[in-house]
């Protein structure tokens, strides 16, 4: 048995989301969507949990604060110099440093997190990707058994696909 | 992306590192010093056990250790030469000037112009000459055994509980 990829395209995300619900209703799990914009409808339709990138950012932030404390306190004690009669551990300035480092590391972690989780940078394209999907079309690519194909095409057509193409994968 | 950027980033990292590394040791002593006279510290300090301050007599009383006068050499190696130098108020001025005979020794250890190192207190504190100048008594031609940079000074001062005030050396 060979698997095929069914590429369908939609005019807007409502139809696309609707199609996804139909697919899930029809017990089809292995599909992938392309869209020119981040669409909440589609996300809701797919119904995945919130992205874990949150935790990465949090980790970065905490690490930043700790790094800030380490640097400020550490360097102060590396050589205890009296400047203007201020105490060695002058907290208010240290807070500034900690804050900046929190934002810095949080941001960097977040960015790298996204790249990692969403698999960029990458060189090979997902099967069924098409330039139009970046422009104004929403696409669903279903990978399934040849046997299943007909049924799924039907589901897609019914949920308003503009066109449905079958490709041997 | 990574193909182009990564090498670039690496290059910058290397260059930056190099810059910083260099900035750490602008006063590296010179190992290449050749002296006008093939004088051997090994023979004098090592074999014959002559104490350092017999020749470098000022170390204990001045910022400078002093290079032994020719007369000091001749004292052991032959007859002295007559002459004199400028004289302080404790011994009044005399007009006779010494012959302008020069041996130009080359510095082995140099310090930057903004470091005011003074031998006197170190000698007084009983610091061994070797602890900064290395085992001179084993060297024919003195080459620096230790790179004397600020870290080297600071470590010893910290360890010996000596002053760590910046102005004591930088003023």
């Amino acid at each position, binding site marked *: 048995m060979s698997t095929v990829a069914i590429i369908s395209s939609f005019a807007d995300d409502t139809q696309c989301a609707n199609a996804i619900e139909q697919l899930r209703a029809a017990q089809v799990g292995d599909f992938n969507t392309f869209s020119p914009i981040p669409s909440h409808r589609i996300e809701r339709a797919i119904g995945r949990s919130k992205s874990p990138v949150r935790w990465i950012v949090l980790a970065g932030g905490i690490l930043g604060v700790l790094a800030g404390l380490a640097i400020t306190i550490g360097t102060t004690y590396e050589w205890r*110099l*009296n*400047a*203007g*009669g*201020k*105490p060695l551990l002058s907290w208010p300035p240290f807070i500034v440093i900690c804050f900046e480092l929190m934002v810095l590391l949080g941001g960097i972690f977040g960015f790298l997190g996204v790249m990692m989780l969403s698999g960029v940078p990458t060189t090979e394209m997902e099967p069924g990707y098409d330039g139009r999907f970046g422009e104004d079309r929403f696409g669903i690519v279903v990978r399934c058994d040849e046997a299943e194909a007909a049924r799924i095409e039907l589901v897609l057509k019914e949920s308003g696909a503009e066109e449905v193409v079958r490709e041997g994968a | 992306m990574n193909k182009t950027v990564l090498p670039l980033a690496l290059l910058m990292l290397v260059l930056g590192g190099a810059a910083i590394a260099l900035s750490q040791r*602008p*006063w590296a002593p010179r190992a290449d010093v050749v002296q006008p006279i093939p004088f051997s510290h090994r023979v004098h300090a090592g074999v014959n056990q002559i104490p350092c301050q017999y020749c470098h007599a*000022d170390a204990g*009383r*001045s*910022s*400078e250790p*002093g*290079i032994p*006068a*020719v*007369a*000091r050499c001749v004292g052991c190696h032959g007859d*002295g*030469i007559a*002459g*004199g*130098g*400028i*004289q*302080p*108020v*404790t*011994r*009044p*001025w005399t*007009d006779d*000037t*010494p*012959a*302008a*005979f*020069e041996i*130009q*020794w*080359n*510095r082995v250890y*140099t310090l*930057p*112009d*903004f470091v*005011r190192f*003074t031998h*006197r*207190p170190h000698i*007084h504190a009983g610091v061994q000459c070797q602890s900064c100048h290395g085992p001179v008594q084993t060297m024919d031609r003195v080459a620096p055994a230790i790179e004397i940079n600020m870290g080297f000074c600071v470590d010893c001062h910290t360890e010996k509980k000596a*002053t760590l*005030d*910046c*102005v*004591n050396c*930088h*003023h």
Partner: protein
Amino acid sequence: MREGLPISRRSFIKLAATAGAAAALPGCEPAARKLIPYVVPDENVVPGVPSFFATTCSECPAGCGAVARIREGRVIKLEGNPADPIGQGALCARGQAALQGLYNPDRLAHPQVRGDDGALRTVSWDEAEKMLGDRLAAASKAGKDRVAFFGSPQGPTFRKIALAFLGVYGSSRATFYEAINQEPARVAAKTLFGRRDLPIYRIDQAEALISFGADFLETWQSPVELARQYSLFRTPQKRRGALTIGRSTYVGPRLSMTASKCDDWIATAPGAQADVAWSVLNVLVKQRWISPNSGFDLAALSNAVANFDPAATSARTGVPVETITRLGETFGKADGALAIAGTDDSSAHLAAMILNAVTGNFGKTIMFLAGSPAEETSTPDEVDAAVDAMRGGEIDAAFIAGANPVFTMPVSARMAEALQKVPFVVWAGGVPDETAAMASLILPAHHPLEAWRDTAPRAGIRGLGQPVMQPVFDSKPVGDILLAAAGRSSSAKPPWATTAAAVKAEWLALASKADGAGPEDFWVNVRREGGLFEEQHLSALKLDTSPFKAPVPAAAQMELSVYAYPHIFLYDGRGADKPWLQELPEPVAQIVWDSWAEMHPETARKLGVAQDDVIEIKTEHGAIEAPVLVASTVRPGVIAVPLGQGHRAYGRYAKDVGTNAWLILAAGATCAGATARATGKTRRLVSPLGKSDMMGRSIVEAMSIEQLARGVIPKNEAEEVTGPFEMYTPWKYPGHKWGMTIDVNACTGCSACVTACYAENNIPWVGKEGVDNGRIMSWIRIERYFPEAKAAAQAPLLYLAPMLCQQCGHAPCEPVCPVFASYHTDEGLNGQIYNRCVGTRYCENNCPYKVRRFNWFVPEWPAPLNLQLNPDVTVRGAGVMEKCTFCVQRIQFGELNAKTEDRELRDGEIVTACQQACPTRAITFGDSNDPASAMMRRREDHELRNYRALEELNTQPAITYLRNLYREKGKA
């Protein structure tokens, strides 16, 4: 260059040069790479350890003793000789700056001969001396007195040498010329006591002082000594039960620095002082405030001063009657009073002397000493005779040394013309000046610090000037040149071959004076001490009260007159080649690198000129052009111009700076009637000073002696602080905590401290443009503020105080530095680490006292000036901040001495450069952790006068000032 080297000039200059090069590029080039050992060690010279020579200062006739600090054969600092009774360890700014005369890059390097085309050709010494000998021989053959010596007084021995030299060439035409001489005073002394020597003064013994135009804190006679006495005179002390300070009055056309330190400035036209003086005498005589045994015949006196009834005088001089009577009263009633005169007419001097005499102050505040040395300076008549002789073609060869008559002599003397008439003029000296420009043979002479000499400033004091280093250039002592020339002639030879021999011979002759010691010990001793200082004995006075000519009142004052006074730093002009002195702001005018025509706003309005307009000042003698300085520090109708500038030669630092005021004066005069007109040109007068109004801020504070007596502290307009409010636990300074106490009342503004600081700390000068661009580098400066007009009655005439880094405990400059280049040391100093500084300049922005200095360019010391650099202090490069360090190198030196000698540091062992230099001892440095230290005791002893600059900022300065004292106006 911090290593041993033989003291052969060649090699040390070579090495010094390398050191200089290194010094110029800090952090870029390590110190000299070569180490050159002695051939034979001198156990008294330890490379890296300074040695000291006692010698004398020869920058003015006062004759202070000096001690030279030598490092590796180079003199790097001049300080006063504590053994010398005149200076007592202090030197003025001019004395400090002598080093820049020694190391001046424009000094003549080789003998030069002027060809017929006027071009100079360098010749060897042999050639030069042969030429000299031949011409002299020729001249002496031509007849008697065809050879002349014309120079400045350079000590008794030199005088002998010069005379011997002339003797050999059959001449007696020796002239010893000082542009600023004491002739009027001598004339007065002659009239009254039949003697021409000068009295010495004891201001500190007086209770009232009147100066008739004598700037005794600046240039008059012996400023260092008199300043010291004056500060004692002004120190509050119980007099007849009441706490008072000496009452001083200055009578003269300009509010000079001296005047500004007095209680009252009575502005008279120049030349009118005599009138006032006689009038005061008139008051004394009338009121019978006269000591019974003064020996004066009252009748004669009253006749003499008949014309000087206060009313009459007041009418002539515009000085209010009550002012005159009040002067008379305070002077007459005072227990110990002193009147001195500095005018160009002997009349005022005579009056002053009589004032002192009739009040019986001779022997108390003013005294003649027995056995005064022979008069060194030729009288004006002798000088004129010499010049006339030259002009008359009676001289074939003239030898000029140490004097610059072409510059300082009035146009009327026609000196230049006279020299042209002399076929062969020899000039010997340092930097070739206007006179050298007229000489056909110019010879490089030793700087006094390189040569043997001696001084005899007064009875009982002989200063011995020994060389302090090998000559910097290929020069010879003037004395040796003369003796050598004399030696060449066939006729009788002089007794000595060299100056050195001469001086030694002369001094050995004095050996008998020394108790017991043999000649050699004596010789050793005097060279250690820097001279022979003996008991001084009063001489009996034969008062000649035979009716002296009753003085005639001066004609009514002129519409507009010009008053020329010696510049406090440039003196008669000899200071102009020294950049340190050029860059010192004149204490009152605060102007640098220029001369100026100071006039009252009223005068300016009359003349229709404004600040910086160049005006032409014309007198019957000549005309000069100078920019206008509008200030109420001169009397209306008077234009005050400083002497000393306007050189047309004399090296790069003096040439074409300012204008030469000698050109508009009559011989021996300091003032003249003048006309002035705007030239339409303008020249910006440059000053480092911004505002002259303190705006009621607590920077320089003052209180009246009455308040002090009552024990009340003046309220400052600035917000009152009831002690520091600390957020944090204060830092502890367990060891030393360095501090300073500065008595503003003692500070005269003489700027000796500033010069000393330049010398000690390798501070570069920046030139006129640099100052104008706000880049002056001085670490310590004299703040000058005018009292607000409304508060004038409740303020001193001028606020003057030194401002330097306050070494704050809560230094605002420290926490803002991103790299700890500015930080606080364990001994309470505000450390500045040059090599850590990245140059954000944030510290200076945040410094309320604005005492930090930024290196805008790489500093330069044209060789051989770089030889003066202090090896113990880093030379700062471009882009770093610097400031006063409390002479941390001296602190370091002292502490190491104590440590290596295993003892405690003694109080007073460490002396900062400014403290050492101060003639009035206004500055005390010490350990604030040691309540017994002189510094702390001084604070406590004057607790009521303590204040800290801008205290309300709670910067906790380590410097405590003592308030200036003034006498509330309109009070007896």
